[in-house]
């Protein structure tokens, strides 16, 4: 008997009998040709008792330095926000954890209502009326938005700000190659998307124009200006007389608590990485991507969407709706291939947003603004460290070190501090050499920032000294 099964010897006899075979072996022999049978045992470690598996996985965990083990300023898309205990409690409830996608709405009202509430929260945050119930993650949501743009206007040129996260850019390129679109990158200037280059790059053939808010280097973009430029300032008219491109903004949902809502800025589609909203770091996943758009895109959106309706007795209820967009109905004509998405992560997201609340998300944003400002000025005042740009930032900022970033980071690590992301290591771009991206969450106090300043300052000094010596 294998783990978690329940067939006793007596069961087995009775069952084989009912089936009309003499053995399990026969049951398979009658179905699988010998040529493709595996006639040896799988070469895997032997099965273990629960306690031994626990011990093994604990040992593996102990060989990771998590945000619990060091003072970490890592960010660049995923952030060590505090996840309130109620989130864990709710996502661990069997009723949320273990069901499949809600195909039977009568017995899935819980999950469906969660989707509906989640859609409402994302809609509020983005200022856009139509949210789906989640996509895989931030970068793939950007790619999915580009595909939607293609379905919408049939054009194939994507103009993308270099302020997108490198992973977003790479994912976009992978997908775009698949569905036949080209990506044109617009450089940054003074830390933000170069407005002139942006406007110039967007032509009548442009299907989608994409930027990040804040961008990868932490700078807040002028979303309204970028949207307006993309749309040529006109009503329904693109920059050079054609139809407007779809303006897509990849946003940090925490920053959206205080930043102008994309929908208010003329953005058509707002997507982003949902991890900061009550999801664990989990070494990068699972989390969720959010995806919201103007009404006109509703029937071309990817993913599940919950809608409100009534039952035969007139009672309010929720169902998966607009399923004719989806793969199981439309197959090769579907607007996306997505099936399993990130429902549980989206639940964590809406619980987290309820916990923060209307005022709390603003307070959180203001706290981050103040602490980030403090940290940025404090660090930039250290000799050998300067700001990469002076644009407004919310919770993350880029510095340029006059020292080898990898070496500096190693020194900091020895002191239990992870000062942030080595940007060049992530992006591979030569111009990112020396750039350190420092992220804050509400878990990083003033004392933590001061410790960072001490440790990072000392590391930079030591590295420069050594460089001079060498």
């Amino acid at each position, binding site marked *: 008997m*294998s783990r*978690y*099964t329940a067939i006793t010897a007596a069961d087995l006899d009775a069952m084989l009998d*009912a089936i009309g075979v003499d053995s399990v072996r026969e*049951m398979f022999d009658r179905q*699988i040709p010998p040529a493709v*049978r595996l006639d040896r*045992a799988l070469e895997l470690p032997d*099965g273990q008792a629960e306690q031994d598996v626990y011990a093994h996985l604990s040992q593996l*965990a*102990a060989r*990771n*330095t998590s945000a*619990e083990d060091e003072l970490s300023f890592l960010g660049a898309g*995923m952030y060590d926000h505090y996840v309130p205990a109620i989130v864990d409690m709710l996502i661990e409830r*069997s*009723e*949320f954890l273990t069901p499949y996608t809600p195909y039977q709405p*009568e017995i899935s*009202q*819980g*999950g469906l209502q*969660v*989707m509906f*509430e989640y859609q*409402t929260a994302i809609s509020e*945050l983005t200022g856009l009326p*139509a949210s789906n*119930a989640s996509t895989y*993650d931030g970068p793939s949501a950007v790619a999915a938005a580009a595909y939607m743009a293609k379905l919408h206007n049939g054009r194939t040129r994507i103009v993308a700000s270099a302020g997108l996260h490198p*992973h*977003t850019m*790479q994912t976009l390129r*992978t997908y775009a*190659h*698949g569905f036949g679109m080209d990506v044109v990158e617009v450089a940054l200037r003074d830390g933000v998307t170069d407005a002139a280059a942006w406007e110039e790059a967007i032509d009548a053939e442009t299907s989608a124009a994409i930027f990040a808010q804040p961008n990868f280097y932490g700078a*807040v973009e002028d979303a309204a200006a970028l949207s307006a430029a993309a749309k040529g300032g006109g009503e329904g008219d693109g920059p050079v007389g054609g139809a407007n491109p779809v303006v897509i903004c990849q946003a940090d949902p925490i920053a959206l*608590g205080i*930043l*102008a*809502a994309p929908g208010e800025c003329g953005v058509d589609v707002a997507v982003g990485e949902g991890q900061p909203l009550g999801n664990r770091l989990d*070494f*990068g*996943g*699972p989390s*969720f991507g959010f995806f919201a758009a103007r009404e006109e895109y509703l029937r071309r959106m990817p993913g599940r969407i919950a809608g409100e309706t*009534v*039952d035969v007795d007139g009672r309010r209820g929720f*169902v998966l709706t607009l399923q004719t967009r989806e*793969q199981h109905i439309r*197959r*090769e004509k579907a607007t996306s*291939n997505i099936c399993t998405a990130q*429902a549980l992560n989206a639940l964590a997201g809406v619980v987290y947003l309820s916990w*923060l609340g209307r*005022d*709390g998300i603003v307070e959180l944003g203001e706290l981050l603004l*103040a602490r980030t400002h403090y940290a940025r000025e404090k660090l930039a005042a250290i000799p050998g460290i300067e700001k990469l740009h002076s644009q407004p930032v919310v919770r993350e900022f880029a510095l340029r070190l006059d020292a080898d970033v990898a070496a500096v980071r190693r020194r900091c*690590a020895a002191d239990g501090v992870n000062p942030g992301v080595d940007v060049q290591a992530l992006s591979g771009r030569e111009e990112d050499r020396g750039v350190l991206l420092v992220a804050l969450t509400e878990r990083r106090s*003033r004392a933590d920032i001061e410790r960072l300043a001490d440790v990072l300052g000392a590391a930079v000094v030591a590295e420069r000294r050594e460089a001079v010596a060498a």
Partner: protein
Amino acid sequence: MITTETPLQRDRARTIFEKGARGRRAFVAPALDVPAVDTTELLPARLRRGERARLPEVSEPEIVRHYVGISKRNFDLDSGFYPLGSCTMKHNPRLHERVAALPGHARLHPLQDAERSQGALELMWNLQQALAEVSGLPHVSLQPSAGSHGELAGVLLTRAYHEDRGETRKKVLTPDTAHGTNPATVTMAGLEVVKLATNADGGIDLDDLRAKAGEDVACLMLTNPNTLGLFDRNIAEIAQIVHGVGATLYYDGANLNAVMGLSRPGDMGFDIVHFNLHKSFTQPHGGGGPGSGPIAVSERVAPYLPLPVVAREDAADGGEPTFSLEHDRPKSIGRLRGFHGNYGCFVRSYAYIRSLGGDGLKDASEVAVLNANYLLARLRAHSLPNGRTVADYLPLAYGELCMHEFVLSGGPMKQELKIKTLDLAKRLLDYGFHPPTVYFPLLVDEALMVEPTETETRETLDAFADAIAAILAEAAQNPEIALSAPYSTPVRRLDEVAAAKRPVIRQALD
């Protein structure tokens, strides 16, 4: 009779946005410990929101009551039998949640240096190895986020493979039994779907295959056992035909739970396979995700694998090996998402594989197939009060035996008893069971696709068979019972047409 319904029970469902009051809150912000600054200077008004997002305003106890309350309006795997075909709703061990929550896994940042995430990288490497062994294909990428994402990776790999050889092949063959994600993926990957017919045994129609397999074919996507729950005995020949025209063979791994340790896609001739860790490897489904869709591939496709892949380097001095994320594959199709895939799912599925071991995985598949065949046999043999049998109304669509699932046709039932598969499904809700998958695969009339999984008891299978029989018996007496079912659920049948016609997809707020 006294009514037992109370005002509370008649209450309409209220969303969290309709609860609470202005000014209520759960969150308490940490103290402002840095010098107060005028934050409007830091962030000019132009860049700021006008109005606050109208998020809920509720106390913590309200949040808990709200979500605990609506959770009770869900059916779930821990509450009952969930024989949803193609979904492999097997038991979700709580050990997995425990180990996934260890801070060393759960609070590990994806950009942590490799030296300081060796545990995670080793876990991923071990998982890659295990999946390679189970599939019989040596190279694994854990990146894709779910089955359909794995499919996209696979089709893009196929494209890259052909393009690298200077060929442009546009056609992808998919059988008419294929899951919807297969054709949808093909389109998203810029290729074209060509449908293959199913033969009388429920397998690929070889003649049709031969006719369509040409030099313009990039790939054949197949599930084996297929969505009829049948193992295609011609698989070797199919592989030969496909490879013969230079195309790749893609294995949709949604049905892997039938063959773990028994038969391997790689040995069948497949080039690319995706796994659904949220099916065969028991990542909980979460009401619609998260999932994880790693892919394993053969040598010839390996150069194009999406990035990153975990590599292992043995220490020269016989010490501990080290693990790293390999980013340098010049022919790679690139990334499909941020970071390294759904690591939290890897932890769970890896724990599962370590719990079961090779023998346990094989046992799991054996019992999955045993349970399916037993349930099929029980249903077949079940006689009804009217002298007929369940099989008269719900015949097996194809085949005799089945693998881990089977597909019945509700056609005769609809004809004779005047209830449709949908009605049967809805009436099952009153009996406390999650219905099987319905109306899929498309080629079976009034399809009912039943996958019990290996973690169910014989008693549960018996009870389910009895329920099906009872519903048919009821229907023979009075079809109205099923036609108007369910009765005992939090809501009854919902108006999906109205929902789609005038979509209300968010709470209106004032």
